[in-house]
């Protein structure tokens, strides 16, 4: 089924995509807004279907969200539409989405892609036990469903995102047994010049800190959850103090009882769709592969603009500014109005620069350091889908001679299961690089022929894919 033709198709209705759709509508374009979820909001403004009020206390910036939702009333919305690929055609682009097993084609002159990111993970013994969640997953249960991940939860990993997760859980009545931040947030202090211009962000951080203090949640820097225990579900974790390289300080291990764990090590941008249309990428400060964009959020492919986490993980405020820039620019080219560099409002450029400086400072303060590899045992699963252990992956590099992530994948099957390496891709690349003595290849796992699972019958209609 083909819908009518649009000037701009925006994929993703999180902070980035919503801002883009609002701006494009404001510039007089006919806009299609497409998202796999049943409603707007993305990860940041996730809420139960039709009931934002129920979780308003867990949210920031709802005024912006509500205004954007009103503004995109003028767009044609395609919620519940999972985009599996995008094709470049003579007149622009065709966005191919699946709804209940059938395909919908949305044709547009220009595109804004704002597909967001997902939690970056590192394997550790027991991380496959039920009750261990990604930090974002615990947040999605809470914000989207009003369900607590557990009664007694341990939060760990690295990055400021651990704070809203812990304070949300505590606010809704979970006992948060501790927040274990592997890095030292004192780094913020050293980078104050980058941080000060966006004091608003810091205030938000301070708000979370106060909430954690109020709920008596212990916060430990240079500590990590290094193992989870239990037979059929998690019942405890081992927490340890880390040295500078994240090796466990001998004798510092401590057992903490819990019924749920929330872990996150930053985010991995979702690049299937930008890669499907051929956007050039670069490696960001946090080691993530991201889409390369210019001043106007334009990618290397004419007519394709990218906003939000997909062009660099930096939080909802940055996604919103980038979306506003991308939406204007995409509307201008599609409707034939000039979109010279001067068309990007100076105010937005300034905001974007400040927020990007803030994001870079955050990434430098919260890197992933090499010592996590020592937390693994031979039995620790690296690839959850194909159940490939660290021992088997090591065999593929040591004995079978794999020297890059791709051949290690073929030899061990790591990354070849349902999730196509979304979960283990980063860790597999790190491990193979370390064991084979070759450079880390951050992009090795990013390319996938289809962005979402589709019925085989549908795929067979597209012989080119």
């Amino acid at each position, binding site marked *: 089924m083909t819908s009518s033709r649009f000037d701009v198709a925006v994929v993703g209705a999180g902070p980035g995509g919503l801002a883009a759709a609002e701006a494009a509508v404001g510039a007089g374009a006919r806009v299609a807004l497409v998202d796999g979820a049943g409603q707007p909001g993305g990860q940041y403004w996730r809420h139960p279907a039709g009931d934002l009020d129920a979780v308003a206390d867990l949210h920031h910036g709802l005024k912006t969200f509500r205004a954007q939702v009103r503004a995109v009333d003028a767009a044609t919305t395609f919620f519940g539409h999972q985009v599996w690929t995008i094709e470049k055609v003579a007149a622009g682009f065709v966005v191919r989405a699946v709804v209940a097993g059938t395909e919908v084609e949305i044709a547009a002159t220009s595109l804004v892609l704002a597909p967001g990111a997902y939690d970056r993970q590192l394997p550790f013994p027991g991380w496959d036990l039920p009750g261990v969640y990604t930090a*974002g997953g615990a947040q999605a249960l809470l914000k989207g469903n009003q369900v607590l991940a557990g009664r007694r939860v341990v939060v760990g990993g690295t990055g400021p995102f651990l704070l809203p997760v812990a304070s949300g859980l505590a606010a809704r009545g979970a006992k948060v047994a501790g927040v274990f931040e592997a890095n030292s947030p004192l780094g913020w202090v050293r980078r104050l010049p980058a941080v000060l211009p966006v004091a608003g962000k810091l205030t938000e951080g301070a708000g979370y800190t106060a909430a954690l203090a109020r709920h008596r949640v212990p916060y430990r820097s240079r500590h990590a959850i290094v193992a989870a225990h239990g037979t059929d579900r998690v019942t405890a974790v081992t927490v340890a103090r880390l040295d500078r390289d994240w090796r466990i300080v001998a004798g510092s291990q401590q057992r903490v009882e819990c019924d749920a764990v929330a872990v996150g090590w930053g985010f991995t941008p979702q690049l299937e769709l930008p890669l499907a249309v051929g956007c050039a990428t670069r490696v960001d400060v946090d080691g993530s592969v991201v889409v390369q964009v210019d001043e106007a959020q334009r990618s290397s492919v004419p007519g394709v603009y990218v906003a939000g986490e997909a062009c660099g993980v930096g939080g909802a405020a940055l996604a919103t500014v980038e979306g506003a820039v991308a939406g204007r620019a995409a509307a201008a080219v599609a409707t034939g109005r000039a979109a010279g560099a001067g068309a990007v409002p100076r105010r937005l450029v300034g905001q974007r620069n400040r927020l990007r400086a803030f994001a870079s400072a955050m990434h430098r303060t919260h890197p992933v350091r090499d010592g996590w590899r020592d937390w693994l045992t031979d039995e620790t699963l690296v690839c959850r889908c194909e*159940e490939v252990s660290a021992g088997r992956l090591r065999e593929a590099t040591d004995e079978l001679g794999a020297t890059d992530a791709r051949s290690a994948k073929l030899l061990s099957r790591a990354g070849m299961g349902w*999730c196509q390496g979304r979960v283990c891709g980063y860790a597999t690349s790190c491990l193979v690089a370390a064991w084979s003595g070759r450079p880390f290849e951050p992009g090795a796992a990013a390319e996938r022929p289809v962005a979402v699972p589709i019925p085989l019958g549908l795929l067979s209609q597209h012989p080119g894919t």
Partner: protein
Amino acid sequence: MTESSFTFDDRRVGFTAGQTVGAALIGAGIRSWRTTRVEGRPRGVFCGIGVCFDCLITIDGVPNQRACLIAAQPGMAVRTQEGGGRDQLAV
């Protein structure tokens, strides 16, 4: 607050409007509903947003559905899934 329910294997699980199947199960204290193909290990929700495929479940006879994405509906027949389900999707 429970408005409706579905069945999970032989028990009844309540949910509030807008919740996913996975969230409703977790809310009812159920942490796993699938076993893995190789080692038969239990799995439930991990990423919560449709990325990891750990939460696969059989709903109304259709296997390999992501419990974290599917909205709960009254009267659904939800079942534990064992091993590979049926490989009917391209990923």
